[in-house]
């Protein structure tokens, strides 16, 4: 293993003259020969076949035909295994590693689109679609979005999406797909470049990138139309610029260039970015010859953090309370460990083997991180590299959060998007020790099996959850699977008939589509109204909500909600053990001041304005 052993930062002239090392025989400047191109093409062909297999699995699932689940896992294996084998291998060159990681990202982006190729269905996507639609309608930014209040204050993703839509003539949906696909493809390359700054070794950089791709949200959630996905490559480039300021004596001001668009795109990524840059400033300051660079980095980071705070306070002050909630949960959980109090969805209990895989993957990753820190220290690497590996301890810390915080699993899964950035490097060092450059056979198989386990762990702990991992089956009040043709038709009618900002009460799926596409203002406090058992109580709740419309889905009386709650901020905190009683829905037909304006079978829309005098 060849983690950089030099004690002084390299000069600029050495940037393009990295020596060919034992684990990177091609170096970074020598062309690959026809043989390695052919091997690369074979691996990419296998990845593409895997993508096709998963798409066929989706098609079988939609047709309710057998074999979908088996074909899905076969496809995922074809996507991951060839990439893992070659990236882990000592004989692959830098170009091949980058190309394979890119091929995997291409297929993952493609499959995220294949899951729902006609429209966005995930609630977060629809929240951002609302901001994009507002920009296209008003031609200005920062228009209030009642669906996700903080979104308009960080309009970077929607700016690029609306620019693509306006200049190409594509629909907002297709423009959004183009935008997030472009960043998802750029991300593994940016990660590779980041880890190349920590080590001269392309193999370690490639393996670290591969390990990052096993973060739970990498393959799917971070390929969706969500603002954190677009901000992430800018975070990586900011951290890379910070490392280059030490390694190659570049100005710390280069950090500003990627940090600014990140600050305009996603609040949490910007704050986390400032924290990571501060940690790097400390590491640099403690490294040989890095005191003045560390000080400059610290000052730059402080300035960027202040800018972020000022921008947030000016454009979206509610962001502070929005982010404070999860932080409070974590602190409460650490102070009073008591497990999750969040409702467990009845229909979403994953198979037992998936839980085993998830636990194994977490344990293996933690072991690799800790082992990698020990390896780097014992190998006599530079102090900078040794100190940098300590940042990987964020991974075990996040495992603690997962266990003790009330909403630990979701919080930790989202936080791992950032935590894995720091944990991947030491974990890669451990895997390289496991499969050294002269090793083959059993060691190669073992290292590949570890990578495959981590990848499978990412699938079972990430999104989509097991009960909607394959599309096609409708679930009430779910994520993508809660939006079928009935729900879409309801939103189309609302879009054609309602003026913007009509206030509507609905379940989580219908609200997502109504707010996203019809620019409605959805209620997040409507559940007591639905549970009211008398006309008087119904009138009282409607007067308090001042809802213009109420949506009802008769399927609530036949299914429990897949996510545990029918409505946003459902007052029934312990979750629904049984479907809703049909008597709760009949009250809307019996109220003399409520009109039924729409009926498509399971879904009815009621006009409730006469109840409260609207």
């Amino acid at each position, binding site marked *: 293993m060849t983690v950089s052993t030099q004690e002084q930062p390299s000069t600029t002239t050495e940037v393009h003259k990295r020596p060919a090392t034992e684990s990177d025989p091609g170096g970074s400047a020598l062309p690959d020969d026809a043989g390695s191109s052919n091997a690369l093409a074979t691996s990419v062909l296998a990845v593409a076949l895997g993508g096709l297999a998963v*798409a066929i699995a989706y098609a079988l699932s939609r047709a309710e035909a057998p074999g979908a689940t088996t074909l899905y896992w076969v496809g995922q294996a074809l996507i991951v295994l060839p990439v893992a084998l070659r990236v882990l291998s000592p004989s692959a060159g830098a170009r091949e590693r980058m190309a394979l990681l890119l091929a995997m990202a291409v297929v993952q982006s493609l*499959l995220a689109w294949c899951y729902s190729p006609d429209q966005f269905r995930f609630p977060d996507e629809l929240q951002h679609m609302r901001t994009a639609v507002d920009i296209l309608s008003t031609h200005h930014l920062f228009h209030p979005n009642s669906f996700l209040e903080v979104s308009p204050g960080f309009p970077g993703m929607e700016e690029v999406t609306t620019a693509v839509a306006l200049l190409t003539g594509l629909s907002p949906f297709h423009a959004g797909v183009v935008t997030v696909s472009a960043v998802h493809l750029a991300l593994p390359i940016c990660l590779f470049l980041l880890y190349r700054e920590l080590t001269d070794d392309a193999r370690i950089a490639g393996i670290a990138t591969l390990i990052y791709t096993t973060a739970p949200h990498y393959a799917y959630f971070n390929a969706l139309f969500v603002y954190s996905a677009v901000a992430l490559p800018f975070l990586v480039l900011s951290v890379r610029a910070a490392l280059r300021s030490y390694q190659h004596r570049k100005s710390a001001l280069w950090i500003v260039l990627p940090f600014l*668009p990140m600050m305009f795109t996603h609040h949490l990524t910007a704050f986390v970015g400032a924290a990571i840059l501060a940690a790097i400033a400390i590491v640099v300051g403690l490294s040989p010859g890095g005191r003045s660079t560390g000080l400059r980095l610290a000052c730059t980071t402080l300035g960027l953090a202040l800018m972020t705070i000022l921008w947030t306070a000016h454009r979206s002050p509610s962001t502070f309370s929005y982010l404070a909630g999860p932080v409070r949960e974590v602190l409460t959980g650490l102070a009073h460990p008591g497990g999750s109090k969040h409702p467990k969805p009845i229909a979403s209990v994953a198979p037992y083997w998936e839980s085993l895989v998830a636990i194994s993957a977490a344990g293996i990753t933690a072991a690799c991180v800790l082992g990698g820190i020990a390896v780097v220290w014992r190998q006599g690497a530079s102090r900078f590299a040794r100190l940098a590996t300590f940042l990987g301890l964020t991974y075990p810390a996040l495992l603690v959060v997962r266990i003790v915080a009330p909403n630990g699993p979701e919080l930790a899964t989202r936080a791992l998007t950032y935590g894995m950035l720091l944990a991947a490097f030491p974990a890669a060092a451990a895997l390289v020790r496991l499969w050294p450059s002269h090793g083959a056979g059993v060691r190669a198989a073992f290292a590949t099996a570890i990578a495959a386990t981590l990848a499978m762990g990412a699938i079972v702990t990430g999104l989509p959850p097991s009960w909607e991992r394959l599309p096609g089956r409708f679930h009430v009040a779910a994520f993508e699977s809660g939006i079928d043709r009935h729900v879409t038709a309801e939103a189309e009618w609302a879009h054609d008939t309602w003026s913007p900002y009509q206030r509507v009460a609905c379940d989580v799926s219908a609200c997502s589509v109504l707010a996203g596409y019809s620019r409605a203002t959805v209620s997040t406090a409507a559940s007591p109204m639905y549970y009211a058992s008398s006309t008087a109580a119904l009138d009282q709740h409607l007067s308090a909500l001042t809802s213009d419309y109420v949506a009802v889905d008769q399927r609530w009386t036949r299914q429990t909600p897949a996510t545990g709650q029918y409505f946003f901020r459902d007052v029934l905190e312990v979750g629904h053990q049984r479907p809703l009683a049909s008597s709760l829905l009949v009250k809307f037909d019996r109220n003399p001041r409520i009109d039924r304006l729409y009926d498509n*079978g399971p879904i009815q829309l009621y006009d409730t304005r006469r109840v409260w005098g609207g």
Partner: protein
Amino acid sequence: MGRAVCLVAAVLATVAILAGAGRPLTIPLGAMLVLVLPGYAWLGAVRHHEPQPLASGALVVMASMGLAIVLGIGLNLLPGGLTRGSWVAGLSLVTVAGLATSWMRGRAIAGPCRPFVAFREASPSTVLKITLVILLVGATGAISVASQDAWIERQHFSELALSRSGTAPVVHVRNMEGRSVTYTVTVRLNRQRVTRFRVRLRSGSRFTRPLDAAPVRRTGDATLKVVLDRPGARSPYRVVFLRQRQHA
């Protein structure tokens, strides 16, 4: 050469988009103007050299996006805001500014042809595999679109709605049954039938009809009820109603 190619592409994109060219032109040129050209020009200007084309490509895309994001914040300050014209003008100006900066600094910009040269030099076996990859990606997309369309088409239902146009209610029917259907629409005021008519709709089509003002028979609350029936479905198939006060 790279600078000239970039300038020509920016000019072409600007002209095509502002002239309202068709989507076969505006899709690639517009996407290039947002996602490629600004970053390509400015990375050349600051001479951020990456030996690997993949690395250069990723940095070009991210630099273009970053420039577009910051530009958009600025365009928002204009009275017209973020329109097609302001985006085209802004992105073109940013691109030209990058090219001018690289020219003034005496920086050469690498041409974009390296990946294509590498492809041309690949062995026949490699070319075949790459072609197969492209076909597989296309098949993946086609299968997904086709299966999603089929899944949507299997969800058969009809839609009945009421809206108001002035004071008169308007009834809307939409056929999503997957085949032509003859519907029966019955309109009642309180319990008395006011009108009944049949309408035959092809699958996917809509029907809209204003309802004549119902004759006033008495004062007090009245319920205007519209019932939609179709052959083979239990009656009433769909129901909507308006409850309103009637005046003498």
